[in-house]
């Protein structure tokens, strides 16, 4: 989220991206492991940059030709530096415009990794925000973290949508997925997800009017982190098709994770919202963070 609030908040960079480049976002965790044409293409580009050990992260901003010729890399968030890099790369690209290449296709995709929601999946946008407890700071990067609203997508399977509409009750698989992967503080980076054994309590019920109410208590075995929250929401259908899935979790959170350091001290209020989306935007199609490496486990037994 540092990039979103710094590099990609700069109007000149946005203008360049909109007119001079083909901008693409990727979770390089997948591409550097993928054994298919897309993985090969990523390793061709990143292999010419400084982060070319594919057993480690290749995170950063890259510029390359459509043929995969590396032009530039930076992992700095400063807009001025990135603008300079983009302009220099456009000059370099001018000399390579006639590079011989053809459109890539993937005949045998590495199915360990998904790049969009499977057919029939309903998508719910998830946002989390720490609602208080931080110490005041003058550090601009810490301020971004402290004010950040996270993003993720929750998947609801066709079977779960059917159970919700026909029985007006929450399938255990959906409650499990909510608890393990979405009732988490991911506002400062990639979260450490909960484990099955961390679920102390999880209830979620629907009344005749479609009102949702529940409670959750999650706690790590070593006691370093917990979340105790109430859930409220509303759900509605057109025949058997979900038309609304609005939910809020609100409660006290303790602790951080390996990549979500510097949480507020002690118990702090964390709110998480859920809202059904129609799947039409590229943002809707991004697989949930919890599905990045073993998506079958994210969905759980159906």
């Amino acid at each position, binding site marked *: 989220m540092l990039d979103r609030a710094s590099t990609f908040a700069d109007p000149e960079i946005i203008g360049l991206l909109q007119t001079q480049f083909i*901008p693409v*976002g990727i979770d390089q965790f997948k591409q550097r492991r993928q054994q298919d044409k897309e993985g090969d293409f990523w390793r061709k580009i990143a292999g010419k940059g400084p982060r070319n050990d594919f057993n480690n992260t290749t995170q950063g901003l890259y510029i390359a030709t459509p043929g995969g010729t590396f032009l530039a890399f930076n992992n700095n968030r400063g807009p001025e530096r990135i603008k300079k890099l983009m302009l220099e790369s456009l000059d370099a690209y001018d000399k390579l415009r006639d590079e011989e290449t053809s459109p890539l296709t993937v005949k045998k995709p590495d199915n360990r990794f998904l790049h969009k929601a499977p057919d029939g999946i309903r998508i719910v946008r998830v946002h989390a925000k720490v609602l208080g407890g931080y110490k005041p700071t003058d550090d601009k990067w810490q301020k971004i973290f402290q004010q950040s609203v996270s993003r993720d997508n929750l998947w609801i399977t066709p079977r779960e949508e059917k159970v919700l509409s026909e029985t007006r009750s929450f399938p255990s698989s959906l409650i499990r997925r909510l608890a393990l992967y979405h009732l988490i503080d991911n506002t400062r980076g990639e979260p450490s997800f909960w484990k099955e054994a961390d679920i102390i309590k999880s209830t979620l019920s629907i009344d005749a009017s479609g009102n949702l109410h529940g409670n959750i208590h999650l706690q790590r075995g070593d006691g370093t982190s917990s979340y105790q929250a109430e859930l409220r929401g509303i759900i509605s259908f057109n025949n058997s098709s979900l038309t609304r899935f609005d939910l809020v979790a609100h409660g006290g959170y303790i602790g951080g994770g390996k990549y979500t350091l510097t949480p507020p001290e002690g118990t702090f209020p964390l709110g*998480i919202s859920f809202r059904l989306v129609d799947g039409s935007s590229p943002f809707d199609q991004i697989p949930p963070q919890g599905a990045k490496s073993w998506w079958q486990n994210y969905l759980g037994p159906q």
Partner: protein
Amino acid sequence: MKLLLFTLTLLTGLASAEISPEDFQRLHRELQPPAETWTTVPWQSSLIPAQQLALKEKKPLFIWAMDGHPLGCT
């Protein structure tokens, strides 16, 4: 010290408060992200369609490569 105690009491109260129907509507609204400039960029979400488009439009690729998908996670 009194201010600190008041703040801690307030935070504890916030952390354990029940959600009334009015609170639900308010919280759901407050937990949406503000309008963000980066969402106005016509991002592609994977490399293959981006490469095909770059070739067609004769433009270089700008690749935002992160741990966790930058368009959707964290």
